[in-house]
């Protein structure tokens, strides 16, 4: 059974709630990049966002942690309007992994402590070792982050986002730039992290297989609007 099935979560209040979320193109205010998108995500649930290129999937994600500003609608995190939360605090609580790892120059350990260091905190060495071991990167803490392979780098990027202990994790096609072997290694890492930590995720993906495997809900976008929203089998078919 899918561990993130919506039926398990239906009694909980939504952790993340979007209402009529919209964004117009900055240079063309007459064009909507995203128009009146609404959904709810409960704690511990994984929601896949699918749709063709240009459908507005990444735009939606970037508005959830306010890397982009919505031009309409609201986002509520645990009942609170995200506009009332300071951007840095919001981004700590809503982590993000991008299509590419974008690791910073330095060691793997330095990348992992980057988020906590912004708040004057750090991670214990044992904690770093344990995190890396959990995704098959034992002994990588002192490795140069910029020399890692694509799959290794993306696993470090996921851990780097999780080092902030976010309430919601946004995944923007984290495996789309990887070859098959690297994609499998990242999927395995995500699978263990999602199950072990009961992560709440919004996962943008082009892969129906990923959506069926991990998502409790699927949001299908097309031309910036919601085409369908529901259980994977309802949206993606059998």
């Amino acid at each position, binding site marked *: 059974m899918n561990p993130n099935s919506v039926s398990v979560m239906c009694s909980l209040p939504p952790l993340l709630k979007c209402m009529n979320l919209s964004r117009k193109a900055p240079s063309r205010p007459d064009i909507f990049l995203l128009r009146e998108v609404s959904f709810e995500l409960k704690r511990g649930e994984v929601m896949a966002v699918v749709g063709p290129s240009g459908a507005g999937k990444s735009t939606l994600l970037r508005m959830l*942690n306010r890397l982009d500003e919505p031009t309409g609608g609201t986002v509520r995190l645990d009942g609170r309007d995200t506009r009332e939360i300071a*951007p840095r605090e919001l*981004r700590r609580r809503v982590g993000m992994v991008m299509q590419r790892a974008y690791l*910073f*120059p330095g060691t793997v350990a330095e990348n992992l402590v*980057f988020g906590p260091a912004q708040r004057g905190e750090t991670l214990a060495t044992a904690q770093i070792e344990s995190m890396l071991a959990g995704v098959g990167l034992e002994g990588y803490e002192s490795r140069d982050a910029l020399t890692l392979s694509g799959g290794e780098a993306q696993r470090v990027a996921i851990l*780097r986002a999780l080092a902030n202990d976010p309430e919601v994790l946004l995944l923007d096609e984290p495996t789309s730039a990887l070859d098959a072997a690297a994609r499998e290694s990242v999927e395995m890492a995500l699978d263990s992290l999602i199950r072990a930590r009961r992560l709440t995720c919004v996962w943008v993906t082009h892969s129906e297989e990923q959506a069926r495997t991990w998502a409790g809900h699927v949001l299908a976008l097309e031309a910036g609007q919601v085409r369908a929203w529901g259980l994977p089998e309802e949206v993606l078919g059998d």
Partner: protein
Amino acid sequence: MIELPSELERGLVDCAIAGSLALVVLVLARRHAPGLLRELPVAELRGLVQIVAVGAILAFLLHGSSWVAVPVLAGMVLAAANIVRQRAKRIQGAFPLILAAILCGAGSVLCLMAVTGVIPIKIPILIPVGSMVIANTMNTLSLFLDRLQGEVKAHTGEIESALALGATPETALLPGLNAAYRACLIPSMDNIRSLGIVWIPGIMAGMVLSGTSPLFAALYQFVVLTTIFSAAGLTCLVASRLVTRRLFSENEQLLLRS
């Protein structure tokens, strides 16, 4: 008949000889660049008129108060800021920031040097040295802003990753600022490093030609180049503080995305 001072007469003869030599070279090379041969007389005449006009203005200013240097240098700063603005087209409202940066950087360094007597408060020194400092600051600031915008464009992902991890805009932009700052000061640093070995700059040659001791001229050239470095470095430092916030919205979103 008007009698010219012998020095001016001599100068005009020198100009005629030098200008003719350039024409002779292009006559010899007319097969390779016939167009240049037609352009050169006009270019020479234009250049001569411009430089003589500047010389005449300087000759007039020499007899005025030293305070005349202030509006002249202020005009140069305005012109420099306007030119640098062309390099910062993607940064909204860049002109006042650039102007403030040059005034704080080059302006304060020039004032300090004038107050301490390193640059004598005399028109024939203050204006040429001031113009060198402002012109080099302008070039350095253009390089800085151009490189900074390039860094942001090339590393948008890294900058937004840092923001997404809860970093401040200043922290997220720091690697790009460091790269731009270092790159823009390399030419000035190389000028100081190669002083006397690769080139003997014009101001030293001019001082020696005008009868100053070569040793003092050499020391003063060092003063001018390090002053230029200080002014350019301080200007870019101020600009980095002022411009950073313009690259982000009030909600700490990167505005200058690739």
